[in-house]
Structure formats: C-alpha cells, structure tokens
C-alpha cells in the first residue's frame, strides 16, 4: 500500500489539554515529521482544530490513538496525500 505523506484531519477536542500541549503530544508520534494545528472554532466546552500532518509514512492508527488519548476525536479526514512525493490539489476550471 502507498505510504501516507500528508494527512489533514478535522478534530474536535476539549479545551484541556490546550492546543499547544495537544499538538506537541500528537506530534510526538514517530511517523510524523511535521504538524500544523489551526484552531477553526471555539465553543463553550470544545475546540475544533484542523491538523495538517506530514511525514514519510504516516501511521494513521497511531495518530488516531494519540488524538483520542488526549481527549479528541477525528470528525473527518479532509485530505490524504500518498505516494513517492506530495501531490498538491490541482486547480480545475470548476474551481
């Protein structure tokens, strides 16, 4: 199977742990080379965070387990990039 090189997931998490600690914890996964966490929405009890993860061979299950251990849940997988190199989303006339 092709290795995952980039993963964009939509995560719902409680306020604790804060985004900083949460991102560091998820970023500790061995298969992750870099991670970006962007706060999308702030609610009374929860936060909606978009995680952009890059690596040579991202282990989705390990990342999901780390997110869930930190109290978060993956709401949707918004982008997956697999293969030898990262292929960006190509613009089409419909865009």
């Amino acid at each position: 199977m092709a290795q995952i090189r980039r993963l964009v997931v939509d995560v719902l998490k409680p306020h604790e742990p804060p985004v900083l600690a949460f991102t560091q914890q998820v970023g500790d996964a061995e298969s992750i080379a870099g991670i970006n966490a962007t706060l999308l929405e702030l609610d009374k009890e929860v936060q909606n965070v978009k995680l952009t993860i890059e690596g040579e061979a991202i282990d989705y299950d390990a990342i999901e387990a780390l997110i869930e251990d930190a109290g978060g849940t993956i709401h949707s997988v918004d982008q997956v990039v697999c293969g030898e190199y990262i292929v960006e989303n190509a613009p089409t006339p419909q865009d």
Partner: protein
Amino acid sequence: MASNSIRERIGIDKIGPIARRYFVSNGFDGALTGVGITVGAYLSGVPDGFTVIKIGLGGAVGLTTSGVWSVWEIERAEMQAELHDIEEAMLTDLSETQVERDKTSTQVVNALMSGLGPLVGLLLPLIPFLFEGAPLSLFQATLLSVAVTVGVLFTFGAYMSMISRQRWYIAGIRMGLAGIVVAVISIFLPG
C-alpha cells in the same frame, strides 16, 4: 526556564488555585483549632506537655482526615460533572483519556493539599510542648505555641499576598491576628 523546570519536576506546577485555597483555608482551621486546644488544655490544668500533644494529635488526625475525605468527595463530584458536560459536548466517552487522568490528578492534589493544611497548622504549634519540663514550663510552652501559631498564620497570609500582590506584612498581620483573637477568647471562656 530553570525555575519552571524545577517546579514541574517536584510537581508544584500542578498545585492550582483551588488546591492553594484548600491548603490555606484548612490550614487556618487547623492553626486556630490548635490555639483553642493548647490554651484550653493549659487552662484546664493538664499535668504535662505530652498530654497537650496527645490531645492536639487527636485533633490533627480528625481535621486532616476531614480535609482529605471531604475534598476528595467534593472534587470527585465536580470532576464527574465537568467530564459529563465535556462528554455531552463531544458526544464521546472520555474514560481513560488524558482529560480524565488530568482531572483525577487534580482531585488527588486538591485532597492532599486540603489535608496538609490542617496538619501543618496543628502540628507546628504542638512542637513547644515537646520541650515542656526541661527548658520550658507548661505556661511558657503554651505561650510559645500561640506565638508559633501566629507565625504559621502570618506565613499563610504572607504567602497569599504573593498571589494577590498585597503588602506581605499587612496580609500576614491580618491572618496572624486571628491566632491572638482565638487565644484571648479561649482565656475568657467560662470554665
């Protein structure tokens, strides 16, 4: 920062404002109970310092157990309520996650600090009674015990002033005064 790292290593960073409140509030209870016990014991005509220590230790056991037990139950209920609210918002079960572990560790720290306060507040004023007989008379030990209690209360006040950024000696005097007030009330109590 080095100081932050030391605080993290010995776990002081986990002592939040609620734990501080429990510690000082219950420490205040312990110290004032200590004054009541020591002055009351002296005025009742106890034969020696060891008897005062035994009475004081009984009080310390009671207050410390009360501090730990009550706060454990209060914090457990609060923790479960908070967790339930978050679970409702997340539509997921948060058992065995870091969220639950963090709340449990806060519960443990709060309960321990709640018990440590009265233990410190009551045990320190009993120390002078260890020296009753040899260098101190029972009266002197009682006076010294009240002074130690006032010192403990002063320290609590000065410590709280670090948070509120008041003048430390004013905050210390405000707290320390309570020890003297209780000692005076105990002297004038009937019997």
